[in-house]
């Protein structure tokens, strides 16, 4: 296995390229792409690749980039695209459609603040727009994870028990434009890891319509089936990890990354690169004798509720760090996970690093110090970080 020094954007595109080539024995690879900072490098890299039985269409908008992916995937091809922020917002109607058709399209997001005010730096608000749309969602914390997650996402999305699109998120600039060593498998290894794409309901030769009108009853049943398929992904992901490990000799990250949580009294819950900082803080505070652990939610959809309940059990204080704001409510992650904690636990939400603020360990240490003093859960708090 080669080790390359690449950025996360590059890693995502490289993974997509390898996945695309892997489908050359089936119906090939087709992707519609459109530039937007900070995802642009990913599409640029993809546009520079020679992919056997593959085509990358330089689309005219994010909306149509996803339209092209839909058409390609509906025709049985493997498909991938990338965008973020307002580009994603513009694309979202077709993201809804991709999920509604149950097409296993994989998308890489370099998370970026939604504007205006215009701001190009990291914020999870864009991908969280997609929370309820029936897409699998992953948040990576380093460049290797970005690479691995994209590969795993194809396998997971295309699994007949799952069969739906997947979103692979990385923090804009923090990961997207940061280079580091990445272990890159050979094409042959990727070929083994990713069986040919088989979309059973794709448009073939038979009289079959994708995306028809439905009655309320039909739609609610189809939603229920989609929901169940999403839940299936928890188990299927574990199988993907096993298979990945067998082929690559390396296990991709868990859906929930627990760090020193077993004996911790206080937990930090976060997504993306915040989690890496959180792990550093855990180490620092442990050195000072504090009993702290970190949980990084890598797989946001499906939400691993049971596992989180287990991890949260008996914990007294939980700081949920959100790199997002649901204006008028608080952090999205906090809203989702607070119910998994013990009733007696103090669950405090800190919206930190929103709109690209660089969250340093001391920020977190201060917040935890504050939390240690609290007697009850306070209102969600927006923490200003430059």
């Amino acid at each position: 296995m080669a080790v390359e020094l690449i950025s996360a954007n590059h890693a995502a595109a490289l993974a997509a390229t390898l996945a695309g080539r892997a489908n050359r024995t089936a119906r090939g690879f087709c992707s519609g792409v459109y530039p937007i900072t900070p995802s642009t490098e990913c599409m640029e890299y993809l546009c520079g690749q020679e992919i056997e039985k593959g085509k990358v269409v330089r689309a005219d908008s994010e909306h149509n980039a996803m339209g092209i992916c839909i058409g390609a995937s509906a025709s049985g091809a493997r498909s991938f695209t990338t965008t973020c922020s307002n580009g994603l917002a513009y694309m979202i109607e077709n993201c809804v459609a991709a999920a509604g058709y149950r097409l296993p399209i994989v998308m890489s997001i370099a998370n970026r603040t939604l504007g205006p005010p215009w701001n190009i730096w990291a914020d999870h608000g864009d991908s969280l727009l997609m929370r309820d749309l029936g897409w699998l969602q992953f948040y990576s914390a380093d460049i290797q994870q970005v690479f691995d997650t994209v590969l795993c996402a194809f396998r997971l999305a295309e699994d007949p028990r799952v069969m739906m699109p997947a979103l692979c998120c990385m923090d804009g600039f923090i990961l997207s434009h940061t280079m580091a060593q990445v272990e890159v498998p050979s094409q042959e290894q990727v070929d083994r890891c990713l069986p040919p794409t088989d979309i059973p309901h794709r448009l073939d030769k038979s009289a079959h319509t994708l995306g028809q009108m439905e009655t309320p009853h039909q739609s609610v049943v189809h939603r229920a089936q989609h929901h169940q398929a999403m839940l299936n992904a928890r188990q299927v992901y574990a199988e993907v990890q096993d298979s990945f490990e067998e082929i690559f000799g390396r296990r991709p990250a868990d859906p929930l990354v627990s760090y020193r949580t077993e004996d911790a009294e206080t937990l930090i819950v976060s997504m993306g690169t915040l989690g890496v900082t959180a792990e550093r803080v855990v180490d620092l505070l442990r050195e000072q004798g504090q009993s702290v652990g970190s949980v990084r939610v890598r797989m946001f959809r499906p939400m691993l509720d049971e596992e989180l309940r287990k991890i949260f059990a008996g914990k007294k204080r939980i700081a949920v760090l959100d790199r997002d704001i649901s204006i008028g409510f608080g952090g999205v992650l906090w809203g989702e996970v607070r119910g998994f904690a013990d009733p007696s636990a103090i669950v405090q939400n800190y919206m930190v690093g929103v709109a690209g603020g660089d969250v340093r360990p001391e920020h977190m240490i201060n917040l935890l110090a504050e939390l240690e003093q609290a007697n009850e859960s306070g209102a969600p708090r927006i923490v200003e970080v430059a």
Partner: protein
Amino acid sequence: MMNEPALNGMAHTEQDRSEPLLRAGNSNCGGCGMSNLMQMLRRAAAERELKLVIPACCAAVTGGSFPESAFSIPTIMSTFASAASVANGDASVAQLNGEETRVICLAGDGGTYDIGMGTLSAAAERNEDILYICYDNEIYGNTGGQRSSATPAGAATTSTLHGKQETKKDILGIMAAHRIPYAASISLAHIDDTLRKLQFALDARGFRFLHVLSPCPTGWKSEPAMGIELVRLAVRSGLFPVFEVFDGERYVLNVEPEFSGEALMMYLSLQRRFRNTGVTEESLRPSIERYWNYLRLMSGRIVPARRNV
């Protein structure tokens, strides 16, 4: 103008009967021009493999309710603005796999002239291998009849109660400006010309665009039986020029109108959408003449063709 039997008798072949593109039992209104187009498309397509991409429009509804379908070929109902991009994906994969499948967008005027315009323009600019057919009933029919940029001046709609003020877009001019290999207008009343163009467009490669004036008894407030005649009147009066443009530069006029005032008057009076909006034969005449002067200039046919000789 016809020969007997019509279309040289090809319309009653076994294939035409056994599997129409649009099956009987669809939910289109009686007298729908799009239905008529689909019957012609089946005749033109014959054994060719087709895929349909249909954005929000009447055809998306007539497709039927899960798990039934009125279309006998693989079809995807896309989002409103995405027909050409979804077709782009379909066509690319067909090409990657060496398949002869013809990918067809079947879109209404709203999905073409308005919300889908950017998508259409982009796919045309990339010269993707798509046959884009706009069936133009000059109205948002699916939502009950609001104006689109294809609605002609003087037509009352539910969003322009006293008649639309603005003239409709020159869609073929727009498409010709993309220098696509083939762009043509189709009159459903002229079946031989329709069939020829559909066949040509099916066989051609690259981006092909067909504009079909599609009578809509519901939106035009006209007798369902008069649909084809209305198209014929639109052609006879010069209101709807039937022509084709190759590579954006070679214009060929296919049907020479008689520019008859009677035809124009009949066209207006047979549709209640033009009632009480102030539009008249005289008010339409200058724009018809202007457009035809332009077409004659573009086609090099300065002298009108002699009719029926």
